[in-house]
């Protein structure tokens, strides 16, 4: 099944974050909790799917010379829509994600997929590619966010592992912890990818 293959790739072997090392800024910045990671992931997935869709539809009209600025305008439009919609519907999440919502525009994953895939493939495939990569990104953010949240605050998604007074390894919710956790996660994901590829 082609779609399952695609998702296996975007979640593990070619995960935009752990496989291709794209979109690192928001990955490290908003994953101090699992919920923030998921929120950011889904917002990005929405922009990615939308921009892939539109760019694929317009691929024969946009002249080659100005394709990058044109892509950027499309992507930025979707990002602004997400920004305003979130502020109107999920005010708290919008405050938490803050600066990183407009920064979705420079998330290299989106421009990367537009350039590498959407501009060269048909609308349906580009749409699936957007969803697959968006969810793969969300998956990576969820894992990173969960690890950091469990080690750093002792709970995940509202489910407490131990009472608030117990000491936790605070550094994981802070900046250094983000880098360290991602480093170890990369090791883990590389191993899983090798297994998935070797086992075929």
């Amino acid at each position: 099944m082609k779609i399952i293959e695609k998702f296996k790739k975007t979640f593990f072997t070619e995960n935009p974050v752990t496989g291709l090392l794209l979109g690192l800024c928001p990955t490290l910045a908003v994953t101090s909790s699992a919920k923030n990671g998921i929120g950011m992931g889904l917002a990005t997935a929405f922009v990615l799917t939308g921009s892939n869709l539109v760019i694929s539809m317009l691929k024969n009209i946009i002249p080659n010379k100005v394709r990058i600025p044109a892509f950027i305008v499309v992507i930025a439009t979707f990002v602004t829509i997400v920004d305003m919609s979130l502020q109107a519907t999920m005010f708290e999440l919008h405050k938490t994600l803050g600066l990183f919502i407009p920064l979705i525009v420079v998330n290299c994953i989106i421009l990367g997929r537009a350039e590498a895939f959407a501009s060269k493939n048909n609308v349906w495939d580009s749409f699936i590619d957007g969803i697959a990569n968006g969810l793969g990104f969300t998956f990576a953010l969820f894992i990173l966010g969960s690890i950091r949240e469990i080690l750093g605050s002792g709970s995940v998604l509202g489910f407490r592992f131990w009472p608030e007074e117990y000491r936790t390894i605070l550094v994981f919710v802070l900046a250094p912890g983000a880098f360290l956790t991602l480093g170890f996660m990369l090791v883990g994901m590389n191993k899983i990818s090798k297994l998935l590829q070797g086992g075929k």
Partner: protein
Amino acid sequence: MAQYALLIIGAIFVNNVVFTKFLGICPYMGVSKKLDTAIGMGMAVTFVLTMAGAITYIIQYYILVPIKIEYLQTIVFILVIASLVQFVEIVMKKVAPALYKALGIFLPLITTNCAILGIAILSVQSKFDFIMTVVFSFASAVGFGVALILFAGIREALETRDVPKVFVGSPIAMIIAGILAMAFMGFSGMVK
């Protein structure tokens, strides 16, 4: 005068754009393998960031706010940055072709350097005036350069050392970045 000094020290050390604000990480990972490319990238980013800060300030307060189209901020800012980078590319090709070649794909990628868009938006959010915006942008870029050069130096040295096989490449890079971030946390006592 003192507030500018504090702003500069703050932006370079205490609130370093890479280690505290998590901006500019993609080029950070990509260009830090060799020391001279890192230095070249640092300089290019400093120029683009400072100019972007100045131009976006003018656009924000003289165009976007008066016409009440602040919601177009993201699009307008990123287009300004893209044009600036294009401009830098053209100039660099003529004036320093060797550096242009060495930076390769990473030069146009400065456009997607979240640090530039991020600092531009932050300056507006912090309600800095024109001079503070320019100083803040310049200092943040210097902070980026410092982080980049430190990192590149360490990575170059690592090439000749024994790293456990599973860690080779990006994992060990991340862990070093984490340790550097911890070191920079020590600066937080400096201001006040």
